[in-house]
């Protein structure tokens, strides 16, 4: 119930934001609220939104509502489950609206323990191992982010000789390049761990697969975007010179992630693992977009964040519903489910088609934008990377179609599957919600781009200081 209210609130926020922008309010951040939290360390509780954050908030709202709707069948410790989910969403919402580095870090860390508990208690498979691995790797990423934030705080001296944690003020200060070279890797790798930056992606397959459905949706859909948003908003925005300096490394790692994720998925036999590895691959696109540092590529990265968020939530949701009924996630044991549970199977197919980038769905739009933006970047290395990333779409198509074809279409393998109950009302609402989101982005992306381009322009202006132009 509460999450529906949140969804409505975010919707209202979106409308009022749009109205304010239309009316010509061009301030970088709207609806700001700041109050002094710990003046000794210049920490403020400073929040505000711009186009990018708003999109993230919308996506979070959709995914959380759907996740909760799909979790009506949780039996043990039900209250704790929903409490932890809400803590997670609080962390995500807070992270996306924070404009003060300390506040951002606070909300980032709030999410770690609920993730651990959700996977460890309600998960399946080797849940304790996955939960611990996830918690420790994410905490290590946060540790790196913490070091980066603190060094930034001490090194960045504002115009009045003051230190600050405030994001917008820090963006105005040009940090000395020697420091940027040290801080940027710390921040980028730290946030990158959240977004499955190669080689720190190893928590993703086990973590996503062992988690209960709503937690997987949240983890893959939102949690991985925390890192992407952090990479964009904190690392690239504040340290554009270092971003340009290291961009080849980012592009290299992102391309490896895309290809490795895609090929690794080919080998998987478990539905959830297929989706988990493909998340590594798709989030590689986000990092590729950020690494390319052109305006179109950055817009593409933002769109991919939103698109992948809802798409993967739909995917995991469909898998969860399938698993509840068939009690197996092995592709070899499934078959012909379209005949017995048509609604759920169609959802699975829709998610799959979106994942492989079929036009009309959001995946196509975001990936296309990234490719266009990436191609604009000068340099043979970047063109090659772009081509390789494009090539991975073929691999994506292979594994998606193979999994969908085997699991959902064809003859029914197991007689027990002949008479399975189809989706209940809550599951239908959740799936429709996400499908609507996917289609909306896919069919009418211009409202997204309009929302975001002004803010991306701001980031680009910082970058042009570093002589990488559009």
């Amino acid at each position, binding site marked *: 119930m509460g999450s529906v209210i949140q969804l409505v609130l975010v919707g209202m926020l979106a409308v009022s934001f749009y109205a304010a922008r239309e009316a010509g309010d061009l301030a970088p951040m709207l609806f700001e609220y700041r109050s002094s939290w710990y003046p000794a360390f210049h920490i403020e509780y400073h929040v505000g939104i711009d186009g990018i954050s708003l999109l993230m908030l919308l996506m979070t709202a959709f995914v959380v509502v759907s996740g909760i709707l799909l979790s009506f069948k949780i039996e043990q410790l039900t209250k704790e489950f929903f409490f932890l989910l809400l803590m997670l969403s609080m962390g995500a919402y807070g992270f996306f609206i924070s404009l003060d580095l300390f506040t951002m870090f*606070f909300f980032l860390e709030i999410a770690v323990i609920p993730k651990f*508990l959700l996977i460890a208690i309600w998960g399946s498979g080797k849940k304790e191992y996955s*939960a611990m691995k996830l918690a420790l790797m994410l*905490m290590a990423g946060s540790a790196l982010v*913490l070091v980066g934030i603190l060094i930034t705080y*001490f090194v960045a001296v504002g115009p009045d000789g003051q230190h600050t944690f405030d994001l917008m003020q820090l963006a105005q200060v040009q940090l000395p390049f020697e420091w940027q070279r040290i801080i940027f890797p710390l921040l980028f790798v730290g946030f990158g761990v959240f977004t499955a930056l190669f080689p720190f992606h190893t928590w993703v397959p086990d973590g996503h697969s062992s988690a209960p459905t709503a937690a997987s949706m949240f983890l893959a859909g939102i949690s991985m975007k925390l890192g992407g948003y952090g990479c964009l908003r904190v690392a690239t925005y504040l340290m554009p010179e270092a971003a340009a300096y290291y961009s080849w490394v980012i592009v290299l790692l992102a391309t490896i992630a895309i290809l490795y994720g895609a090929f690794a998925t080919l080998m998987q036999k478990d539905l959830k693992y297929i989706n988990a590895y493909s998340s590594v691959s798709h989030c590689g696109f986000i990092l590729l977009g950020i690494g390319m540092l052109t305006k179109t590529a950055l817009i593409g990265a933002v769109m991919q964040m939103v698109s992948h968020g809802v798409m993967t939530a739909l995917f995991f949701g469909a898998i969860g519903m399938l698993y509840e009924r068939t009690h197996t996630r092995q592709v070899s044991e499934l078959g012909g489910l379209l005949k017995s549970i048509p609604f759920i199977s169609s959802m699975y197919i829709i998610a799959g088609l979106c994942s492989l980038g079929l036009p009309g769905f959001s995946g196509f739009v975001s990936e296309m934008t990234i490719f266009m933006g990436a191609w604009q970047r000068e340099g043979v290395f970047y063109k090659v990377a772009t081509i390789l990333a494009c090539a991975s779409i073929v691999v994506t198509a292979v594994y998606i179609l193979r999994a969908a074809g085997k699991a959902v279409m064809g003859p029914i393998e197991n007689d027990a599957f002949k008479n399975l109950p189809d989706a209940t009302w809550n599951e239908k609402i959740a799936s429709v919600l996400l499908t609507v989101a996917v289609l909306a982005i896919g069919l009418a992306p211009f409202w997204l781009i309009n929302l975001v381009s002004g803010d991306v322009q701001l980031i680009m202006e910082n970058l042009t200081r570093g002589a990488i132009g559009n």
Partner: protein
Amino acid sequence: MNEATLFLMKPELSLMLFLFILLIGKVGDWFKTNESVMNLVHGLLVVQLGICLIPGTGEAFSGMYRTHTLIGFEKLILTAGTLLISLQSWHWARNHKHLPEFYILLFTTLLGFYFMLSSGNFLMFYLALELASIPLAALVNFDLDKAKSSEAAVKMILISAFASSMMLFGISFVYGTTGSLQFDQLPQLINGGQLQMMALIFIFSGFAFKLSAVPFHLWTADVYEGAPVAVTAYLSVISKAATVFVFISILSPLFQFFPALWNHLLEWVIVLTICVGNLFALRQTNIKRFLAFSSIAQVGFILLAFVAGNADGSASGIFFLVVYLFSNLGAFGVVSIVSAQTGHEDLVHYKGFYRHHKTLGWVMALSLFSLAGVPPTAGFFGKMFLVASGAAAGNYFLLLIAALNMVVSLYYYLRIVKFMFVDEQEHHMILQPAHYTVMLALFICMAGVLLTGVVPGLYAYIQSLL
């Protein structure tokens, strides 16, 4: 000695009065039941809290005794901690055969810490240190029917005596080279000579022993394991807090004269303490030993407060100690109930704890999260401020080690949470409902853990006192 002096020393005098009330009560056989002793003690401690709240500033006995608002606040923290520990040990204390003696010794130790905080002179300081340490060693023995307790007490008294004598050695050198023992005169008299350097190292060693900093930490695990839970809680929280408070106000200024030595020493000790504490905690199977090593690691973090040597650092140190008090006492509270009712002290006995004892499970989990430094508990803020003030000096490598060790510590804290929340076992513990005093203490601890961080008032208050 006039009325003004008497009024200045009111916390100590009132505590002494309460101490004598207990002593005479024991001798005169006033107490028929253990419950009456406990109720009396709790009442007296609450009154003591009130007395500590009355501010006072001044000196007495030609500078030997001094107090101001910060010292009053520190005494308040120590008294509050003692009250919480006493409230929590209800189940253990109820069946104890020599309870009035326990409280008499406890009050004596607390009195020693009061004098230590208020000392203005090395001689007074040493006297107070001994007044605090010797009864503490006796307190460790208070699980009278267990041999482990006696063993722990012997270890404690021997090492304690050795450390105190080392400190005295250093103090004597300070006197020898400067001619004065007054704290406010020493900064002018210290001239950076080599003998003074040696003296300060000896004094630091004595402190490091009380703090369980590496390499003076070897007594910690055995003593914590052997002592009754209440005394372990006292050692781990109050004793450390008092030592750090004294260090901040008195000794840190003295060490500033040897910046190279001091920074080097601190860096090594911090890195070793945090790493050794974490690595050993990973292997523990007894919960009291586990909490001992985890508190060693926390001490490493507390020492970060001294790296920068400025007011921010001291304020973060004091703030962290308040938070640490709440978190540690929360954890010890649960351990004390379990230990008193079932005698189980091994980690594996906590499997499946949550499903049958939800409130206590959450208390333990929140305390462990606060110790690990996970938001939104106050432990997060405490650790962040310590790390931030430690980084102010520019030693970012230290910062990296501290941050990475937070990950390691998260692992062992999460392991216990996992035992409690995820695992199941057939012969799980069944506890009687805890007495209301215990729940009250745990409630206060949880309020502290949850509110002290997110609500910013405490840190600002501490800063204003410095």
